[in-house]
């Protein structure tokens, strides 16, 4: 059976005002303002570990009229960016 990668956020504090997301990284002390979709994803990940498939499903739910490849591309960028920022870890 293939080992699936799961993702979860590191220790963060989320605040949201309508489409505005701000998160505080409690490990580094950095503060980030996020676009609404990244914000939804990372805040969801701060509450539970999610597999790649689940993240794709969440993105599909969030967006209307997008293709599968656009979703995949966004998720790829999201994971890369947020792992680099130290906000996301895979296990």
């Amino acid at each position, binding site marked *: 059976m293939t080992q699936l990668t799961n993702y979860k956020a590191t220790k963060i504090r989320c605040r949201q005002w309508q489409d505005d997301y701000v998160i505080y990284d409690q490990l580094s002390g950095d503060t980030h303002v996020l*676009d609404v979709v990244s914000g939804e994803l990372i805040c969801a990940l701060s509450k539970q570990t999610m597999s790649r498939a689940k993240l794709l499903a969440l993105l599909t739910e969030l967006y209307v*009229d997008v293709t599968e490849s656009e979703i995949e591309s966004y998720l790829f960028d999201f994971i890369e960016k947020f792992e680099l920022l130290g906000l996301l870890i895979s296990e």
Partner: protein
Amino acid sequence: MNKQKLNEPAAHKEDGVEKRRRFIKGAGLAAPVVLSLANRSAFGAAKGCLSQQVSGNISEAGAGSCSSGSLVTVWNPTNQTIGTTKGNIALSTTQTTTPIVTASWTAGGKAYVLTATITQKGSSYIWSGTSYVYGILTTQTITLSLTRNGSSIESGSFTFPMSGVTTNPTGSTLFTTLFPSGANFTIGTTYYTYISNPATGALTKALSAVGSLSRSYFSGGTAYNSISAFSGSSITTSMLANLSVAGLNANSVAALLNAAYTPASTPPYVLTVAQVKGLCATPPTEKLPPNTTLTTFLASTFS
């Protein structure tokens, strides 16, 4: 006030059924956008540097800006070049010539005498901009002569063994320490291996031996516990060299040296000497930022 619940995505009701919001993609699914405010060294920024912005104090070098300090490895004695800007100003130099030490043996019915004359120079160095003694630099050069039945057969500079002496021998142990059995050395251009049992042949000519004509080492230095607010008895120079043994002390000393070293041409270090001492005091008289240790915090002020 319309307070959003923490960590909950916005939801709305449609036809009595709660649905997640959905976003129109626009001209394509945009890449993640992040604007960041990086954490900065809170301690120094709240005091040393920002105080200059708030106070407009013109007498602080680089008013309104501070710099991070040098890493422990930069201050480490093994990385120091004498006379460079990061310390090592010679205070005084002394020179002594150690009395002759000899080894003698008989082989093949002949009497051999190996004589070593050791010239030792000591220079005391301080970390520039401070009163802290970096250490005494001892440099030894040795000249050797070898006689057989009283007649000179070899003389010249002694070349230290490559497989070196790592301790700092003095006095009567000097010779036996310099010439352990099996040590290779040269006299002039002739290579020798010294055998500890002279009866079977004290010297044999070796194929090769390399080394340096002098050796030098640092010792001493300001004792850690002589700097108020620091504890422990390790000497400053040796402490910086033993990073894995004294990680905390190495960072503390490096922070102290960064704070004390303030040339006019660069912005000052984020902490002052008093602040470093306050952080390192037992109990501390300066408050650390939350969620960090002294070692980690001090390391974050170096780059």
